[in-house]
């Protein structure tokens, strides 16, 4: 890799009073890749995202995003990123389309209406675009939230637990959107507490635990940390998720209500 990493974090520390949330965190994220920060609640994921998105200052260490230092070049960092926080940061009283136009205006873009319509189509919200967000489901809200992050095409996107609280179908839609972003060259740093999410999406995975990165590597590398796989014969049962998706998939193409299986 000859290019500088999109995100370079070195020795970042952060404490709130006497709680050490981050203790010397180091990692790099390559341009155009998906990097998953895996950790349980309270591991420090959100604190790290807030530092990288200039909302919080680190106590020590340095972080560079898209070539700019988050502490000394905050304005340039903000030009290069967008943040989708843990809770959908959307305006409930405005319609979906108005939310997108608002962000397009604040990004100082010329064609706000066109941008908004294109993004509504991209996250399959064209039909709901004229409705107030307060009437949206959790999945629609999250999709709108992500669409708002895409405005202006920032090269680096932070997604803080993008699928927490979503149903399986909405979750898959978010995954598809994330993959599409990375395919288009955007660097994605996402945090998650779901192991399968990191496994399904990320090029590299780092496990953050009690403010430290314990391991950092590709899925294959991480799997090699454990003893080699042994072969077991297990009856392949469909998971509940398979059943759920199969059933609602069928009902979308007309199955009588309450069909007995």
């Amino acid at each position: 890799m000859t290019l500088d990493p999109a995100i370079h974090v070195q020795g970042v520390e952060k404490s709130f009073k006497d709680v050490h949330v981050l203790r010397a965190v180091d990692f790099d994220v390559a341009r155009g890749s998906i990097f998953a920060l895996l950790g349980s609640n309270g591991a420090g994921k959100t604190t790290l995202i807030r530092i990288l998105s200039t909302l919080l200052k680190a106590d020590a260490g340095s972080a560079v995003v898209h070539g700019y230092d988050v502490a000394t070049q905050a304005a340039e960092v903000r030009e290069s990123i967008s943040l989708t926080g843990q809770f959908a940061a959307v305006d409930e009283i405005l319609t979906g389309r108005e939310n997108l136009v608002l962000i397009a205006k604040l990004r100082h873009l010329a064609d706000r209406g066109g941008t908004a319509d294109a993004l509504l189509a991209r996250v399959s919200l064209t039909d709901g675009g004229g409705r107030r967000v307060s009437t949206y489901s959790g999945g629609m809200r999250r999709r709108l939230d992500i669409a708002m992050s895409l405005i202006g095409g920032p090269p680096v996107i932070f997604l803080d637990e993008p699928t927490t609280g979503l149903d399986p179908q909405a979750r898959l839609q978010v995954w598809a959107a994330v993959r599409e972003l990375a395919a288009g060259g955007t660097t994605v740093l996402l945090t998650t507490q779901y192991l399968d999410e990191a496994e399904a999406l990320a090029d590299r995975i780092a496990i953050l635990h009690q403010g430290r990165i314990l391991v950092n590597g590709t899925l294959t590398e991480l799997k090699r940390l454990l003893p080699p796989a042994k072969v077991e014969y297990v009856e392949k049962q469909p998971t509940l998720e398979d059943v759920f998706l199969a059933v609602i998939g069928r009902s979308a193409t007309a199955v009588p209500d309450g069909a007995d299986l």
Partner: protein
Amino acid sequence: MNKHLFGDTATLLGRSLRHILRSPDTIITTAITPIAMLLLFVYVFGGAIDTGDVKYVNYLLPGILLITVASGIAYTAYRLFLDLQGGIFERFQSMSIARSAVLWGHVLTSVVANFASLALVVLVALLMGFRSSAGVLTWLGVAGILALFTLALTWLAVIAGLAAKSTDGAGGFAYPIIFLPFISSAFVPTDRMPGPVRWFAEHQPVTSIVNTIRNLYAEQAVGNDIWAALAWCVGVLVLAYGIAMMVYRRKIS
């Protein structure tokens, strides 16, 4: 100064104004308590209050206008608090916009919303027999003082909204301000109040502002009251603005 300050402020002002247009109940509930007081004092207590040759509704209106603003700013604190809580505040802060545009959007919205409520209250007062022979310039003067008063209280509301931990806390700071006009010349003349109360009433900001507006409407000399009123408004405005900006900077860095 950021080159986008005016543009971003206008954008965010448009956003909160749209909120108000979609729930105009905030304008109406702001005006309802002052209107109820106006009715109560003019038709129930007013007969027992001696204001000399001045019609009581004419005497009372300036104080009621201040109460209207004091109850209106609670919504400003509330709206700001909701933004902070909902995450949209962080989204704005993580974008490359003028840093103070978020606050100015709310502050200007407060001025517009309060003036809408004030217009409602004045309309009811006119129906109840309030009359002023004042010309356009004098009305503009009154509007100017009310705008200054609204700005001063709005920046106090910004401090409350930024510092609040709950929605109740965000709006609760307004109650003492709503109560302040009762211990002033707003409802009854101060000269028959007992010593210490009278001293307080005559030296607190509401009395000088009320007297100024009352004299402007009556087309009488405003005397020194106008200077005291302006000094209070500008003083509170500068102080509240300074503290609000300090709290804000601590919040966003």
